[in-house]
């Protein structure tokens, strides 16, 4: 009997905690059309791009990936995490300023973007054999906080992964073009999710 009650209470706690931890994906409707102040920033972004493959290549695959990774860095031509951060911030600001008053100082709402990973992705098989086209991948999340009495409360959070095709032989120009398109795609997806409740 005691064991049953114990299990039931544990389950209840798990359900309650899970419920609390589930953050809505979009900003609640009451925050729109009031020109509420919002600050925008990209908080995390790896400084170096990462080469990603399907990951079943073994040791040979790792060696091949190292070569491809160095090729990727050459083709980035000086583009680093800070460049990506700034591009994402500018584009997100531009999209959000249609709904909020964007400020550079502390605001009622703050939008924080975390970029988890960015760089080239190549589908591969054993020994790192290429099985598809190169893609530019960005994975990240956007969290909107409400600043109440000096405390930050999560209002909405959404995550997105985007891939932009680059073909079989990405050049410097193709890489840059794909990166800009990936950023646009990433921002469009993340913003449409976070502003789902906003009236046009």
């Amino acid at each position, binding site marked *: 009997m005691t064991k049953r009650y114990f299990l039931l209470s544990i389950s209840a706690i798990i359900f309650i905690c899970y419920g609390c931890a589930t953050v809505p994906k979009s900003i609640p409707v009451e925050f729109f059309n009031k020109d509420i102040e919002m600050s925008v920033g990209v908080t995390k972004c790896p400084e170096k791009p990462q080469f990603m493959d399907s990951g079943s290549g073994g040791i040979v695959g790792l060696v091949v990936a190292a070569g491809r990774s160095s090729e990727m860095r050459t083709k980035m031509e000086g583009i680093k995490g800070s460049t990506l951060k700034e591009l994402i911030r*500018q584009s997100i600001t531009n999209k959000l300023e249609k709904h909020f008053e964007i400020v550079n100082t502390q605001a009622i709402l703050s939008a924080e973007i975390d970029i988890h990973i960015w760089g080239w992705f190549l589908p591969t*098989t054993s020994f790192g054999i290429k*099985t598809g086209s190169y893609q530019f991948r960005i994975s990240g999340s956007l969290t909107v906080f409400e600043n109440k009495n000096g405390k930050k409360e999560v209002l909405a959070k959404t995550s997105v992964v985007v891939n932009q095709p680059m073909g079989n032989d990405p050049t410097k120009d193709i890489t840059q073009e794909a990166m800009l398109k990936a950023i646009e795609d990433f921002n469009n997806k993340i913003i449409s999710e976070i502003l789902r409740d906003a009236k046009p």
Partner: protein
Amino acid sequence: MKNRFFKTIVFILILFPTLPIFYQLVSADNDKVMISFKEINEMEVIADKGRQHYWKGEYHDAIKIFKNLSIYEHPSLTLYINELGNSYLALGDYANAERCFIKSYKLIETYVDHKREEKALSKFGKEEEKIYRGDPYEQATSLLLLSLLLLDKGDYDNALAALKTATLSDSDATENLYDSDYTLLNLLQAKIHLLRGDRDNFIKHREMAVENYRVTHPDVRSIFAERLDKIALLKTSPDKRKKDGAKATDSELKTQLFELDKKIKHLSEAIDAKASLNAMYDGEYNTLIIIPTGRAPIKVRKGKDAQVVIFEGVNVDVPTPKIFIDGKNLNSTPITNVADIEFQATTRGGRRMDAILKGKVAFRDTSVSIGKVLTESGGQVGGYAGITMQVIGLIAQGAGGAVTPEADIRCWKTLPKSYELYALNLPEGEHKIHFEQHLYFEARNKIEKSINIKNKDSIVVIFGIPSLAGMYSSQCEQEMKLSKKDLVDREKTEKGLIITPPLGLNKIERFDSKITKDIEACSPDVKRMMQEVREFLKKRGVPAYFVTHREILNRKDEFSSRSQIAFQVVLSGLETETNSRERIYRASFDMALVNTSTGEKIFSKSITGTNTYLLNHSEPTKGFYGCLESALSQFVSEQQFIQSINL
């Protein structure tokens, strides 16, 4: 037995990577210089530089680049000849432009390389290796420009021939799936028939032009396109229709078509083509001014294997030039929607290459899938049979990966979004036509042309200057919203200096190093730059306010009457230099104070701003804004700046 098996496996593994080399040897064409895909790509990178010059109004530099790319025969020659011709046209060199468009036409007709075509169509060949001939809209526009040049020379027969060929290029002559809908082609043919005294053919072509005008009119085009889709669907077999997820039956489609026809008829009747086509309808004009506006859409790759081509619009709105005839501003409304390149580019019938590319992607997907199954099953089977299966699986997956389905995205990137026309009936004698392009408030690229109207039965064709679309920062594609604070600030600043968005900025700018080849990238923020300029001027007691890109385009006169001077900045170059301890950033700007009423520069100077950081603390974005501040400081310290502001 064991050894023999392993030897076979090793042999296959060694042989596999060499297959592409054998393929290259077998497919090489001994009669012609085989330009590789890499070389074609490199030429496109160089051509893009030429295109940048073209859109910045630096036509001599553009001509130099396109000329170098057009010396010998190669698969992209026709494209670069067209772009060379277009650059000559922008410069007003009609003779060389004509030569280029004639050469382009001849190349399309005669330059064939079967081996190359076969290679492009094969599973492992690249589509960009095929000879560029241009989409129907590109071929038709090249011939249209040629016909206009011939018309200006009075060579009506050849102009008519070029227009007829252009009409054929714009229609599907082989399968008769669609007719040409390029209004200007018919309007010009009508005019030539009138000049030759052939009234029947004049009326015939004019009626065709009116029909083209109506179906391509912005009010009708979407419904007309829907009608074409329904007709295409009606022509497909029921099985294919089912496969594509289309549920409508033949009778339902016919009913929908009937309804659409009624709608089109109703909308078409409401369009007053006669009034819109103005003098071109009656053919009573002796001067034709053609103004290229905006930038045509460009081809980009889509799909997981970059195998699909779509057209993407270049969305920075740009002003059209001012036109003066004998010193008087031409205030009449231009004739529009008769040569809409964007519409022509995006509404052609299905490309032949698309189906082939889909086949390549299907081959890749199938090979990779089969390969995966074999590799995974091989692992479970074990033993020699298992290893064999795994090796074959890997080969299949590798073969799939080696397929190159990427679509060819070469296209004529110096074409305008559309051509606007002025059909005028000027009195006989000499006239001076003056074009003036504006870069926000600054008057640029002033061109004057003298024409001589000899008699009633002649026509003079004049090409206006293309827009300076390349000078506007790519960040202006998105509408800039000023904050409440900025707007309040603007209201308060009654007669301050206008700060326009900075010009010549790309989304990504690079600090190049001539010595170490150590490149650093940054992404300048247009708004932040404007803020920096405003704060800097404010600190020195110069009131200033922002005006956005769109505001200048739509309300320029309003701002001109409010403020006499605008502050304009153009980024002209970035450079970096590193020594053992420091990194030095250098950014060059062309800064100017412009008279908002006349467009003249009151004071301008090219300035290089410098910013130095310790090696461990250097950051290109910070470096860039530091350079801007340094350049601003130099500019405002100039005596002429202070004098101009006080004036």
